């Protein structure tokens, strides 16, 4: 397997057991409407700290997607504030920055210039090529001339190649890969190594097993946050909202 040194995290989580990990994303009373004017998020407040893994269970998928876009700073809230401090990925699978005129090699070079780690660009390139399984001919062919399946593979692999503090996954985007049978052990191993020690937010009910690894859940109903907290042991399956662990009540202090 080549390019595995690209999987070395840029920074490691360093915080004592008494201090809380740093906040990567903080949403304060965020409201968001879809293009038709319907509220998809309403008065939404929550934060993601480094290393936390969240799954979003929503009755309307648009609300979950809007939340991912807000967290990734792709969508500006119509009201409220979204503060993003960490190194947050784009919503995986919703990438629109690839130039159809450029080859996969040039597109990668562009992304590596923006997101790559210094000294790891070559390893990142090898990792990408091993995930996509592109030969030299495909690698230098203009992106617009690639078959749709290869385009999808390249786009999704690109997200796993770079190191982020928070990975924003839209599992629906990975569905074509699963259908094509391209999601093999290599992809799964890279995914697991990539999100180790990293914060993750995904939509509940994915088939990649990311949501199963999430300890925390947000439940959205009618665009409102109705519950959030730790997922109870053994109950992580979706689409139904997972049973959340009851919050511990503070003992009254004397």
């Amino acid at each position, binding site marked *: 397997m080549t390019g595995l040194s690209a999987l070395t995290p840029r920074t490691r989580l360093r915080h004592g057991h008494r201090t809380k990990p740093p906040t990567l994303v903080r949403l304060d009373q965020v409201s968001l409407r879809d293009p038709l004017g319907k509220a998809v998020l309403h008065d939404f407040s929550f934060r993601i700290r480094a290393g936390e893994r969240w799954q979003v269970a929503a009755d309307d998928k648009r609300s979950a997607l809007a939340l991912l876009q807000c967290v990734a700073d*792709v969508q500006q809230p119509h009201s409220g504030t979204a503060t993003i401090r960490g190194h*947050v990925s784009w919503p995986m699978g919703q990438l629109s920055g690839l130039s159809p005129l450029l080859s996969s090699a040039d597109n990668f070079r*562009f992304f590596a*210039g923006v997101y790559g780690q210094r000294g790891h660009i070559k390893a990142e390139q090898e990792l990408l090529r091993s995930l996509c399984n592109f030969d030299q001919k495909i690698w230098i062919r203009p992106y617009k001339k690639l078959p749709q399946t290869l385009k999808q593979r390249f786009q999704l692999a690109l997200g796993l190649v770079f190191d982020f503090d928070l990975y924003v996954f839209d599992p629906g985007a990975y569905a074509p890969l699963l259908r094509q049978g391209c999601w093999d052990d290599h992809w799964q191993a890279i995914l697991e190594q990539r999100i180790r020690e990293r914060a993750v937010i995904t939509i509940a009910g994915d088939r990649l097993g990311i949501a199963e690894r999430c300890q925390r859940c947000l439940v959205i109903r009618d665009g409102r946050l109705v519950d959030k907290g730790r997922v109870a042991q053994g109950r992580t399956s979706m689409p139904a909202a997972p049973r959340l662990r009851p919050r511990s009540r503070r003992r009254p202090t004397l």
Partner: protein
Amino acid sequence: MILDSIRLQIGIVRALAFRDQRERISKSPFGAPGLLLEPLLFVVIILILRLLLRVREIEFMNPVLWLASGFVVYYLFTKIAIKALTGIARSQRLADLRRIRPLDFLIAGAVVELQIYGTCLFFVVLAVSLFQWQILVADPGAAVLLFLLVAVTALGVGLTSLIVGHRFKVFKFVVEVVIKQLLLWTSGLFYVPPMLPDNARALLLWNPLLHGIELFRHAMQPTYPIPGISLSYVLIWAFVSLGFSMLSYGNNEQLLAADEPRAES
């Protein structure tokens, strides 16, 4: 920490410039040389016209260099300024990449224009130098500095117009007309400014691009006369326009980004 941020910023601008350059090359039917064709063709056409019309010979310096320096610097200015005026809308496709700010596009665009027109001028100077078998640039350092100052001024003017034009549409339109039309006739591209009558020359000296072009010619040929032309004027324009544009951009970035229509995902 600050060094890391600067390094990251440089990396982003370089990546965007690379992408812009490659896209232009793939769009051009002649590939990379096609990018140099436009300004070179213009110089050739004007030269042929001058020969046909038997216009009075330029006495102070080589006519090809005189024309090329004027047109290349003029093109550099207008391309950067116009791109800065319209550059934000083109950035839509990269709205998903939050690391890239609208300003990065404008700087990257300016870098690509500098590369193209710098290369173009280099080839003209090389060709004329080989033809005459002597080095024709007396002060290359000053020439490069002026080239950069013109680019900085263009970026500052374009960015300021973009932000002010965002609030007053008429302003943007007027600046676009001034850059595309008025500067063409007032920047000393078709006539030698020192040979103009004093009152006409005094009228043209408001134009910072005229100062930039004349100083550039003077850097190539020290005997080229530059009455009334001042480097301080170019420096003031460059720093004031860039400073003002950065100040206004810092306060308006969110507004500009929010007004961009969202790309379909």
